[in-house]
């Protein structure tokens, strides 16, 4: 087991950690400081000046490690594809936002179009080349699948883009997206090892990369992952889930992503419907807790603990 589990973790961790002292000053010199939203919590205004696009560190660590294993573990290729592909979209978005100073980044339709293309290639691959049945394993119910036949494909698009958006929203506090996603990556690593699915190298690389990145990203953060990182991680989580035929498990292990997205949808709809009333103090929901008096680190800790517990529960339902 050491070859395909421990080595990728350490390799990715090493790359991620070593890149820090080089990449972070470089990003800072390029003045890729994240423009903090004016509408965000006051406490966050201190953050302007902290460079973003740290996702490049994570991505480099995962990509390099995966390249080493790609030949012997071809199963990781689709996951690498979607991770890198979405990471690229995030990179474009970050670049436009930060370097070209247009704070909203890619236009919504542009972003969506790119995401659709990437997902499309991934879907084609899974369906036609891997000929993987898109039926989804139902947690806790052995040998039972949820199968919508031809509608599995549109569902795949929704799940992938939804997960990605969830990851994106989760990236709002120091270390939040990294901590939550590292738990999810550990969960998938355990499943990958247990089912001998041959994808352990990339899931373990994600674990290592994120742990390395967290050294620089925990509060007070020296670098943010930006959309480059967030979208890449979203892609990684969604792709891994589909390769293992376990998208339904995302509802458990990636519940934080789901809650983040839902909180935004609910807040916006309610606001529009009631002409100005709010459900949460602020959306996405991690800001709401901050506004309730929780410190940033507390929110991150709580969300991580919740994810860890959910992953344990989900492990019981894996078959």
């Amino acid at each position: 087991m050491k070859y395909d589990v421990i080595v990728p973790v350490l390799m990715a961790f090493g790359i991620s950690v070593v890149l820090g002292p080089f990449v972070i000053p470089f990003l800072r010199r390029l003045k890729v400081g994240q423009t903090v939203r004016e509408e965000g919590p006051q406490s966050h205004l201190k953050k302007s000046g902290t460079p973003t696009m740290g996702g490049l560190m994570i991505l480099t660590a995962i990509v390099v490690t995966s390249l080493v294993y790609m030949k012997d573990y071809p199963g990781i290729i689709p996951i690498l594809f979607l991770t890198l592909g979405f990471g690229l979209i995030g990179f474009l978005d970050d670049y436009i936002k930060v370097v070209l100073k247009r704070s909203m980044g890619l236009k919504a339709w542009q972003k969506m179009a790119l995401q659709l293309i990437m997902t499309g290639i991934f879907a084609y691959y899974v369906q036609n080349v891997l000929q993987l049945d898109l039926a989804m394993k139902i947690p806790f119910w052995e040998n039972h699948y949820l199968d919508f036949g031809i509608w599995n494909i549109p569902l795949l698009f929704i799940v992938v883009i939804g997960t990605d958006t969830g990851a994106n929203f989760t990236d709002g506090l120091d270390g939040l997206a990294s901590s939550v996603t590292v738990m999810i990556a550990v969960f998938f690593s355990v499943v990958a090892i247990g089912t001998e699915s041959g994808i352990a190298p990339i899931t373990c690389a994600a674990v290592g990369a994120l742990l390395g990145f967290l050294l620089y990203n925990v509060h007070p953060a020296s670098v943010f992952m930006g959309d480059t990182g967030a979208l890449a991680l979203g892609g990684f989580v969604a792709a891994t889930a589909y390769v293992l035929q376990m998208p339904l498990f995302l509802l458990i292990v990636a519940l934080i992503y789901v809650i983040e997205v839902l909180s935004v949808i609910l807040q916006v709809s309610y606001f529009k419907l009631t002409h100005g009333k709010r459900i949460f103090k602020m959306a996405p929901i991690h800001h709401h807790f901050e506004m309730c008096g929780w410190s940033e680190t507390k929110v991150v800790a709580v969300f991580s603990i919740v994810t860890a517990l959910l992953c344990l529960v989900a492990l019981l339902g894996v078959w």
Partner: protein
Amino acid sequence: MDTIENQSRFFRRKKMVVFFFAILLLAAILMGRLTYLMIFASGYYEEMAIMVHERERNIKAPRGRILDANGVVLADNITVCTVSVIHSQIEDPEAVIEMLCRELSLSEEYVRQRVEKYTSIERIRSNVDKETGDRIRSYNMAGVKVDEDYRRYYPYGDLASKVLGFTGGDNQGIIGLEVVYEEYLTGTPGQILTVTDAAGLELVSEGERRIEPIPGQDLILSLDYNIQSYAQQLATQAMLTKGAESVSIIVMNPNNGEILAMVSVPEFDLNDPFTLVSGNEADMTEQEYQDALNRMWRNDCINDTYEPGSIFKIITAAAALEEGLVEAQEMFHCPGYVIVEDRRIRCHKTTGHGSQTFTEAIMNSCNPVFVNIGLRLGVEVFYSYFEKFGLLSRTGIDLPGEAGTIMHQPENMGPTELATVSFGQSFQVTPIQLAVTVASIINGGNRVTPHFGVRTQTRDGEISEIFSYPVTEGIVSEETSAQMRYFLEQVVENGGGRNAYIEGYRIGGKTATSQTLPRNNGVYIASFIGFAPAEDPSVLAIAIVDHPQGTYYGSQVSAPIIRQLFENILPYLEDSSYN
């Protein structure tokens, strides 16, 4: 505008643009490569998938054989092959289809469908004989795989079918000795080891290592092929000539419980256990079919009970002797019936045996005398002997599904029940139970455990384990045992068992003719138990004929079977280095 500031901004800008395009370029190249691998190089995956499949295959181990006491193989293995195709490795599909159709006699449509199916591996046919399998392999066509496996084979078809049992699809025992000794008979599968085992895929450049499979242990039985075949032959003959429903025979060594033969005709073919002997499965429902199969596989010697009838008088007599309640020379009178409570129980000789000693009463198999003896014992004492002789527990034979005795509770036994029990009616035991109990009475008082399994050994004959079985001593005293042997020798020499007599041999035995329920329907069970030599028995046999047509007396129907059996096997047993 300050030129220096503009300049630095310009350089900074340039750096960023370079940086941006560098990353974009790298990423684009990588994405392109990934897309290529994913969409266009899919054949690569097939290889990997197959190798995972191969890596996971165990090497099957041959099942242990079952041999009789002299080394005759009763259950063996033959090598069979499974023929499969790997779509992506096939180079000439038409040739493969043509060859497989021809060699395996399959329709072209069937084979074509499987050859053209886009999956990693597809099974064409299993249970192919080795010769054909080897031939298919010798064509050396890419994409065709021939794997070997073992299948159980019984060289003697229906010999001891209900004793040996048979195996299922995965070569696991289903009934009989095959399932009881499963642990010993099942071998340990071997493995194909690769360099990256556990979760990894094998590296093609590295060689394979094999851990050889360990064959299952061979099981050596006490069964004797010659005695079993002869007994089976006799039983089948009797069944046909007497028009009986079934015939059971047990031949055992009364001193150690080893069973030399166990027959329950009609037997079935072990190589085809799911085909009904009656042959009309097509007309049956699922449930009817299953019931019919169970009936076909049933071993009447151990799975069913019956009313033992007069053979049971041996037990009544032994109990009375132990209690000192009767003597050999004691005089009795039989008027042809006896009245118990308000019932008149008839003797089989309706005119009565008149005056007779106890010895003569046994020779005559006189019911009223035994009712008398039974009443002397009383319910409590009789019941306690029932227990002491082991009749209420199972014999512990090494076959599955041994039935228990069906007997009244002592509190429900009044004089009438006691009376009928004394001559072996109104309760039920299995034939093996009866045989073992009688054996314990005539062998000096030792209740043995009947068994087939003697020892296990490796393929090369090295002994692995010798089985030992419990013996309970002190069932009856030596005197009682000697006395019973004497009585029963008289039965054969001068009494109702004279049809079992063989010149030159001293044989003991007892007849029985019991009517089945409901009474007066004219259905009988004719049985006879015999042992030899009478003074120091080394073999005991019982024959039970169920529902004979025409004459139905144990003395007429079953005693001759035992005589014929002994005629053949007594000299055989003397000659062989047996015991």
